[in-house]
């Protein structure tokens, strides 16, 4: 530290000046709040009342609360169904895109548009697509192929699957694009060599594509789980009050209600921290379990 020249310290001062605006905003609006809310999570506080220290009670209340456990379970249900479904379809799409087909560009555009569309506006459209009686787009489509019409968002059994269908529509194109980038990195020679040995189609996919695209799968798995754990907009828009029998009340929706309907900020902060820890641990666990089995070129 002492060995540096004056020029070095002049440059350091200048560099800090360059970083300052970004650092200041990050500090005040992203880093500081995390500490602040850790403190708040030990309080009983509605922003107006005198804050009262309650220790870990908000946390113990959360885990003792069947509503929170239900919300956690519904989130796991949503993540556990939407993520694998979306990834599987996206990989199939990417493989199809990759084989030289006419019009791939057009297909890609079509599949990608939902991703750039505002989640809440898209959810409004889907709300009507899931119209629970006859006359709804989806119900008439089902009827046309001789399947029963469903109550969708008004049926506790079908409300969450409806949200999953929406998510599939919204994210499959995005995941496919990432997968496609991963597929392009697999050397063509591998397929050619395999073809010489008579391995094409499913065999080539099983022994070349799947293992070699695993870094992409791993990456997508992590970011999909993290982002779908935070699902909010479609649930907020499509199922008012958390769905029939609370069947779509996911963690972030529950947290939103506690904070902005009941102004229970201590409890909501504790919930936010629990969510944060869950996501953090998930990332670590995945890194240990999946990361080891990922095949890097």
């Amino acid at each position, binding site marked *: *530290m002492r060995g540096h020249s004056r020029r070095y*310290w002049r*440059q*350091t001062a*200048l560099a*800090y000046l*360059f*970083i300052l*605006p*970004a650092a200041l*905003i*990050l500090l005040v*609006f*992203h880093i500081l*709040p995390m500490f*602040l*809310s850790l403190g*708040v999570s030990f309080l009983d506080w509605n922003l107006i009342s005198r804050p009262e220290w309650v220790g870990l009670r908000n946390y113990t209340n959360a885990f003792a609360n069947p509503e929170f456990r239900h919300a956690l379970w519904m989130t796991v249900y949503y993540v556990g169904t939407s993520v694998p479904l979306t990834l599987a379809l996206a990989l199939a799409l990417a493989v199809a895109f*990759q*084989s030289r*087909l006419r019009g791939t*560009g057009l*297909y890609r555009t*079509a599949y*990608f*548009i*939902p991703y*750039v569309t*505002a989640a809440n*506006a*898209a959810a*409004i*459209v889907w709300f*009507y*697509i899931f119209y629970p009686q006859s*006359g709804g*787009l989806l119900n008439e489509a089902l009827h046309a192929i001789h399947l029963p019409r469903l109550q969708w968002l008004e049926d506790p059994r079908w409300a969450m699957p409806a949200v999953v269908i929406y998510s599939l*529509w919204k994210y499959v194109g*995005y995941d496919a694009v*990432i997968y*496609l*980038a991963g597929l*392009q*990195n*697999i050397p063509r020679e591998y*397929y*050619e060599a395999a073809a010489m040995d008579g391995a*094409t189609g499913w065999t080539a996919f099983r022994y070349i594509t799947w293992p070699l695209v695993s870094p992409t799968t791993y990456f997508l798995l992590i970011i*999909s789980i*993290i982002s779908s*754990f*935070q699902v*909010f907009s479609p649930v*907020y828009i499509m199922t*008012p009050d958390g769905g029939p029998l609370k069947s779509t009340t996911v963690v*972030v929706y529950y*947290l939103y209600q506690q904070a902005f309907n009941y102004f229970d900020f201590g409890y909501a*902060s504790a919930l*936010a921290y629990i969510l*944060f820890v869950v996501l953090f641990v998930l990332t670590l666990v995945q890194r240990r379990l999946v990361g080891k089995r990922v095949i890097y070129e």
Partner: protein
Amino acid sequence: MNPSGSAAFGLARPGLVVNRRARWTVPLLHLVLLAGAAAMVLPFIWMVLTSFKRPDEVFTVPLSLWPRHWVWSNYPEAWASAPFTRYFLNTVFTTTATTLGQLVTGILAAYAFARMEFWGREVIFTLFLGTMMIPDTVATIPNYLVISKLGWLDTYQALIVPWTVSVFGIFLLRQFFLTIPKELEEAALIDGASRLTFLWRVMLPLARPAVLTVTLFSVVGGWNSFFWPLIVTNSDEMRTVQVGVSAFFQEYGTQPNLAMAASTVAVIPVIILFLFIQRQFVEGIARTGIR
């Protein structure tokens, strides 16, 4: 960044051994892809067509996509039922401000991280990246507390200031700046050009693709943002398009034709932007994996 990964979209280097495919594979693939693509686009088509329907034509048996009577007045009617002009101006203003903010803070910081040697550089950069580990929705409650402490609830500051930094943008710009030869800079600095002049005159023009990507993501993100503006605004005057449309939907939900007109207006700008520059967009995503 690997060249084959980003260059290959659409141009589709053959990845599978094409000539070994059975004769029915190609038509079958097209059929499946086409059906899927139709399913992707249908909600948009339905949205636009419904926005021109009479209320009693929306849910019918048998279903008809096409409006029997074209009702052009749905748009003016929806527009008059809520201060949409204000919503729009709010969104345009806040999106522009956050994008400009992200560019200014991002370019300055990225340049320092990429090109200046200074004390604590690695630690600070790691700290910056670390903030990306905080999930957005998790950060919302604590951020709301700060905003309310500052007395900023229901103001433009609340909508703008916290989002004037994008760590992802800093990272992307830094990566790009690193690829620009150092000699260029040494020559310029010996000539007496100050760092800011150099950054503005030389680095930025060279880094245009990265700047464009950051701008694009910022604009789309700003236009589509929902959770944050929903929470920090409560008066009609401060609502953004997305929050306004959602509030409109909750109030006029029984009139799907009007709700669809409002949704159309809320999504069309981004879709048009996307259709024009989708290559940059898709490639930016493939390169960076932002979600």
